[in-house]
């Protein structure tokens, strides 16, 4: 079966002074798959993520999304095109309610031009926000101030917010970090559900077991380069991957 590439990077690189955080990365994301990107601390995962979402401008290389080059576009335009993201360190709009957080994202089309004059107080928007909160299981917290929520809830809030922009591809940045075992299970179930609905998901994780469990396919990043690619169970048996995580000689 011919699979359709939704997102592709070609020789993508980002250097900070002398540091090559991302150094010539080629990846392909196929529509509808759940792709994992793993790598030890400092491997360049978050930098890669910020390049794709427009928060950093690449030193060289291309990012092609649905046939269009998007490298260098500002984040808000990339978001409007349907690339949604969450943050590794959660960034809720703290003083707003959970509902308002999601609602604000529901208006992503209306921040363009002068459509901002339109009211948000309309059934379709409110219903959508409510539906998304139910989707991630936060409906009981809708009118709580976002800043007062525990981390597990905030991660789900960020996912709801990301879904609000009707994404074609969802980028999750370390969604498991700092979570309890029960919370991780909840997020895992949520990710599976979204994948089941046909959403393309790009998962950046340092929790390898979780990534292995969830992903259809995986890339391993180390020192800004791809060191392995393939089926998750095979990737983690790869010698250079084991060395990257546990140190040279451990594979023996």
């Amino acid at each position, binding site marked *: 079966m011919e699979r359709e590439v939704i997102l592709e990077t070609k020789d993508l690189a980002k250097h900070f002074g*002398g*540091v090559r955080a991302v150094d010539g990365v080629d990846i392909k994301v196929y529509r509808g798959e759940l792709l994992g990107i793993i790598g*030890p*601390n*400092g491997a360049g995962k978050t930098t890669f993520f910020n390049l794709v979402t427009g928060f950093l401008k690449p030193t060289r290389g291309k990012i092609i999304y649905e046939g269009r080059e998007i490298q260098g576009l500002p984040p808000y335009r990339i978001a409007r095109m349907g690339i949604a993201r969450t943050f590794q360190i959660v960034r809720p709009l703290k003083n707003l309610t959970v509902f308002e957080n999601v609602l604000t994202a529901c208006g992503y089309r209306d921040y363009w031009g002068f459509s901002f004059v339109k009211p948000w107080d309309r059934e379709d928007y409110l219903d959508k926000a409510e539906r998304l909160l139910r989707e991630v299981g936060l409906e009981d917290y809708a009118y709580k101030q976002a800043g007062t929520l*525990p*981390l597990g809830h905030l991660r789900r809030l960020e996912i709801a917010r990301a879904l609000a922009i009707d994404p074609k591809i969802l980028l999750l940045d370390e969604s*498991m*970090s*700092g*979570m*309890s*075992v029960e919370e991780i299970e909840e997020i895992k179930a949520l990710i599976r559900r979204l994948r089941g609905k046909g959403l393309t998901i790009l998962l950046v994780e*340092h*929790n*390898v*077991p*979780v990534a*292995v*469990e969830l992903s259809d396919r995986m890339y391993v990043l180390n*020192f800004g380069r791809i060191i392995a690619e393939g089926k998750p*169970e095979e990737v*983690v*048996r790869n010698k250079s*991957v*084991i060395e990257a*995580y*546990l*140190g*040279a*000689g*451990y594979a023996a």
Partner: protein
Amino acid sequence: MLLRVENLTTYYGKIMALDNVSIDISEGEVVAVIGRNGAGKTTLLRSIMGLVKPAKGRILFRGEDITGKPPWIRAKLRIGYVPEGRRLFPYLTVEENLLVGAYTLKDKEEIYRRLEAVYRLFPRLEERRSQLARTLSGGEAQMLAIGRGLMVNPRILLMDEPSMGLAPKIVDEVFDTISSLKEEEKVTILLVEQNARKALEVADRVYLLDTGRVVLHARADEARNDLRVRKIYLGG
């Protein structure tokens, strides 16, 4: 017993980072705390240094309860600290960074002797003594962070992920340094590391942490063959 951590439970913001963790370390030992990213290793060191307040439990240093003491008192007890990500003072020179490390020492002579000792250990730092710390390469910066921690002639040196973000060759250099600190200078070291293999090479004993709990405590040579370590890191 030089340092004993008893039933420590720590929250990091809203996250329970440590769940009833107990570890200890005797004089002259090198003890490694390994585990996946986010296992609570860094929080453990930060708790010992007083940078996060534990919710429960005690920290005893040379028999004295230091749980509620501020970080600068702990520094005065000659607990040396090499923070995660090095965290040098970027706009101070190499030598000034070292002098901040010696802040608790009052005697000029002694400071000078320590400076000499650190420069003997890391000749490259002496060459770059008047350069700003931010201009150092990753490996040099790590050397400086270790040197800064050694300035107080520490009774124990807490090292947080010294291999992080360094190229493999430099990681080897850093661990050679750690071994020589152990063998020649007889420094007691509590080492937090993600690079399990390297940590197990230099350590006498090891604790394996996972989601805030100690899941394995063993002699380093035993742990090397323990499949649990690999399972925790890579699953499967």
